[in-house]
């Protein structure tokens, strides 16, 4: 068997579902007198998108705009036509989010409790909630850890739990904000393999060029603007040139 | 209460617990053990303000009462609220609230001197008033004995006042203080 690469491999499409679409309509974000993002106009329909750029280039804010955690100061972001600010509640259901530090995304003392906390918000009723928790524990191979304290998990297991939490709500999109930065190589591979297999549209903000290299489309952010937008090979080359 | 308020309350309750993990520092001359835990009381009030600071300590004490060994020395459970010194514990949320209330009132002028004064009042006077009142009223200890028994702890508390005040003022200076962020 050929060695598997780590990355944002595109899973096969399952059917003729509606075309997924994230749109930035002249979006600017300012914090105080500082401009974080300026004039972003984009339509994203690819299934695997990577966003790269230096620290402070606005990557994290870009990611948070997609699920309404940050509001645009000017302009609007829509996901499948839904405004991320006005329809925040629905957006959260359709857009899963994985943060950099798994410790900050797990809020319950035990693994299963943490999943239950998320699934309760869906108000599915006890039977359906349990079924969904069982399934997600199985999918991410966390079943043997279900009664363990969250704190006792390894970094990779914590990040898988955080991913399981995001996938529990069966979102159509998954936004990742540097999901592997704090992980060692082995755990990074484990997490990326799990993400590889997803049918969802994945937008990954990353410093990891190896991951970016496998995306269908790569955006390079610099000083709050899209400095390059294209295929992985071209975008990474452009990014390397900028950094040189 | 926003989600952020709830998280802040939980994290400062947790900080108070973490401060209890440190081995007690024994004061040189008096030989009295001083734990860092009341520093959590002063920090919660000085950083979170009255409502959130007071609630952080309520949360902490409820968890102790439920049996979690979060007090310095791994103590916990209902017994600690029946002891001779329980008044000190009960005064913690009040002290954090008072410190927070005064901090909010003096916020526009808040500087090291104010911070120290506020923490002396809330972190020492309020706590000792509660603790000593309990010793006298509940445990039947004469007032003078209760006072003398408490004195050796004052130097340690004074150090904690300076620490908490410095942290709060530093946060304000770096614009990281939650009370300065009116979101």
């Amino acid at each position, binding site marked *: 068997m050929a060695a598997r690469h780590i990355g944002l491999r595109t899973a096969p499409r399952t059917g003729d579902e509606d075309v997924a679409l994230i749109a930035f309509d002249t979006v600017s974000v300012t914090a105080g007198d500082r401009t974080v993002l300026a004039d972003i106009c984009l339509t994203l329909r690819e299934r695997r998108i990577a966003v790269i750029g230096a620290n402070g280039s606005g990557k994290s804010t870009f990611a948070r705009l997609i699920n309404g955690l940050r509001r645009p100061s000017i302009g609007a972001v829509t996901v499948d036509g839904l405004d991320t600010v006005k329809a925040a509640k629905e957006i959260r259901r359709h857009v899963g989010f994985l943060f950099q530090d798994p410790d900050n995304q797990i809020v319950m003392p035990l693994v299963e409790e943490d999943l239950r906390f998320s699934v309760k918000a869906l108000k599915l009723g006890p039977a359906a909630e349990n079924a969904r928790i069982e399934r997600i524990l199985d999918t991410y191979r966390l079943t043997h850890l279900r009664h363990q304290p969250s704190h006792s998990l390894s970094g990779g297991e914590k990040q898988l739990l955080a991913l399981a939490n995001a996938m529990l709500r069966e979102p159509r999109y998954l936004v990742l904000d540097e999901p592997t930065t704090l992980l060692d190589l082995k755990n990074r591979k484990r997490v990326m393999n799990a993400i590889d297999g997803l049918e969802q549209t994945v937008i990954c903000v990353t410093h990891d060029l190896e991951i970016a290299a496998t995306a269908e489309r790569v955006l390079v952010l610099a000083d709050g603007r899209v400095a390059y937008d294209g295929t992985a090979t071209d975008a990474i080359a452009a990014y390397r040139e900028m950094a040189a | 209460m926003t989600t952020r308020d709830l998280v802040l309350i939980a994290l400062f309750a947790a900080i108070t617990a973490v401060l209890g993990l440190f081995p007690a520092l024994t004061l040189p001359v008096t030989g009295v053990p001083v734990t860092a835990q009341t520093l959590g009381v002063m920090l919660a009030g000085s950083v979170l303000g009255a409502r959130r600071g007071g609630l952080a300590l309520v949360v902490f004490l409820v968890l102790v009462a439920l049996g979690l*060994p979060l007090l310095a020395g791994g103590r916990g459970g209902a017994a600690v609220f029946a002891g001779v010194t329980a008044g000190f514990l009960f005064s913690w949320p009040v002290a954090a609230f008072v410190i927070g209330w005064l901090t909010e009132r003096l916020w526009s002028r808040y500087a090291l001197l104010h911070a120290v004064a506020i923490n002396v009042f809330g972190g020492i006077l309020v706590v000792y008033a509660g603790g000593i009142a309990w010793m006298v009223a509940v445990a039947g200890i004469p007032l003078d004995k209760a006072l003398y028994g408490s004195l050796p702890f004052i130097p340690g508390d004074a150090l904690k006042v300076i620490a908490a005040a410095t942290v709060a003022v530093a946060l304000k200076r770096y614009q990281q203080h939650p009370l300065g962020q009116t979101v």
Partner: protein
Amino acid sequence: MKLTLYIRRDSPVHALPAGCKLCLLLTAGVLILLTDNPLLLGGGLVTALAGFPLARLPLPEIFHQARPLLIVLAIFFTAHALFTSIGTGTVLTLRFAIMIAGGLLLTLTTRVSDLMAVLERGLSPLAPLGLNPEKASLVFAMTIRFIPVLAETWETVRAAQQARGMDRNPLALLIPMTVLTLRRAEQISDAIEARGVDL
């Protein structure tokens, strides 16, 4: 660092509802204040201790964990024996020992979520006063969840300052620790909101 909580076992003590155990503990807390008889209190302690083997808990491990508590009790007893009387020391020490054993047993055999549920039920009459039981139990759970995380942060900060020779200055630890905790609070609230949890 381990915040020792629940140890999973199949036992009658584990099976007892959390509310029941909590009530028993509170009742014990009141009962022990009603008697000065060392024999009665001794009997109480034996009863409480009997709960440990009944709960099929790993006794040596628990003994190891409880050692600091036992040392404190021993000091407490010695102080009373020296300065008041052995009788008073015995009674007070037994009372504390009973409550410590009971509290430990409750903590080891009861899931935090179950205790939280009891608390939630206990708090629900207060809902009209603006106290939201769900929010309250979330705060309790988060506190437990983040104690080990913050202890680790503290260790990291200490190691970093030690490398710069600044670990003897408490402020060099406290200020970064507080700043990091406040930053963590932002990220945690973002993560909760991203989960679509309505609070």
